[in-house]
């Protein structure tokens, strides 16, 4: 309770500071040079995949964390693990169920500075389930653009990703690692 009220006051203070003159810069990820990857563990061995289609609207400035915002939409139909059988299974009804849930959506509005970078706390909506997922990242601005690299770890079963047999974690691990490297261009 105390902690929460301290948090909200600190956010309020940061928001007031931001309102006083600092605004986050609006960027969008360049699809050609940005990557959004994931890695799961299947039968004890890691497999890597990528999402070819996603959009990332990034409003960020190191001195305006309170007004910063990430809004990322991922087209789950673009899932690619370099194997058609696995890709079909992942898009299918027992895993992502793209027929019902074609996109995953991540929105973050809360940012904190860490020693090596930042942590965003946002909500991920995947497979019809919304949960908080922290993302740690580094932000390096360069000219009019910026580079945003980061990682997150989530548990697929929190989102019901894996139904029927695929609920078992004996052969498919619950933990999935997500990593991204976004080339940000100033939004028009």
């Amino acid at each position, binding site marked *: 309770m105390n902690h929460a009220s301290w948090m909200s006051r600190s956010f309020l203070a940061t928001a007031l500071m931001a309102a006083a003159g600092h605004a986050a810069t609006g960027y969008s990820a360049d699809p050609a040079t940005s990557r959004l990857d994931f890695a799961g563990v299947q039968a*004890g061995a890691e497999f890597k995949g990528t999402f070819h289609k996603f959009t990332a609207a990034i409003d960020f400035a190191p001195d305006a964390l309170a007004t910063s915002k990430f809004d990322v939409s991922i087209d789950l139909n673009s899932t690619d693990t370099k194997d058609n059988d696995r890709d079909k299974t992942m898009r299918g009804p027992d895993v992502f169920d793209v027929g019902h849930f074609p996109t995953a959506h991540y929105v973050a509005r809360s940012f904190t500075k860490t020693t090596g970078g930042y942590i965003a706390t946002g909500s991920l909506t995947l497979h019809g389930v919304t949960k908080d997922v922290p993302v740690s990242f580094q932000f390096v601005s360069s000219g009019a653009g910026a580079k945003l690299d980061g990682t997150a770890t989530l548990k697929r079963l929190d989102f019901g990703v894996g139904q029927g047999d695929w609920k078992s974690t004996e052969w*498919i691990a619950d933990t999935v690692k997500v990593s991204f490297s976004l080339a940000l261009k100033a939004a028009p």
Partner: protein
Amino acid sequence: MPNKSSPVRYTALAQAFHWVIAALIVTQFALAWTADDLPLGLHKLALLARHKSFGMTVLMLAILRLLWRFANPPPQLPPGMTPLERNLARATHVAFYVLLFAMPLTGWMMSSAKNYSVSWFGLFTWPNLIGQSDAAFALLKSTHDYLSYALLAIVILHVIAALKHHFWNKDDVLVRMLPFTKSEKRP
């Protein structure tokens, strides 16, 4: 007293290699044939994961077995075999060793080509031997399949030959590979 250059029996370790690998090969056929009939799914994935772990075990055992064989030459073929029989026996054993390496290696490459890295019972992951390629996967899969038929054929030949030596020729070819038995001294 048998001297080291012409042992009468296979060493205990050579027998262990033989029977453990034989049991693994039977298991491999059972797993592969069961998995072949299954639709894509978790059950198939699980069986093939076991198949890969056992296959890599065979590969490691085959390396050790071959090294052991170089250091401890096997007993000689019994006298009285015709040159044709001797050549057939030698060719079968060479084919066994070739397949003990070729089966796991083509399987490992198949998994690599399909971008499914091979784990050893979940304890560690073997590196991919080749990059992802649908064409390479198809070629390796058919190679792995044809080699398995060849292996099955020489297993059958090997078993028939061993039984023929034991019951027809009444020599010690079978017994000298059997643990817990004794071989008669050669005349």
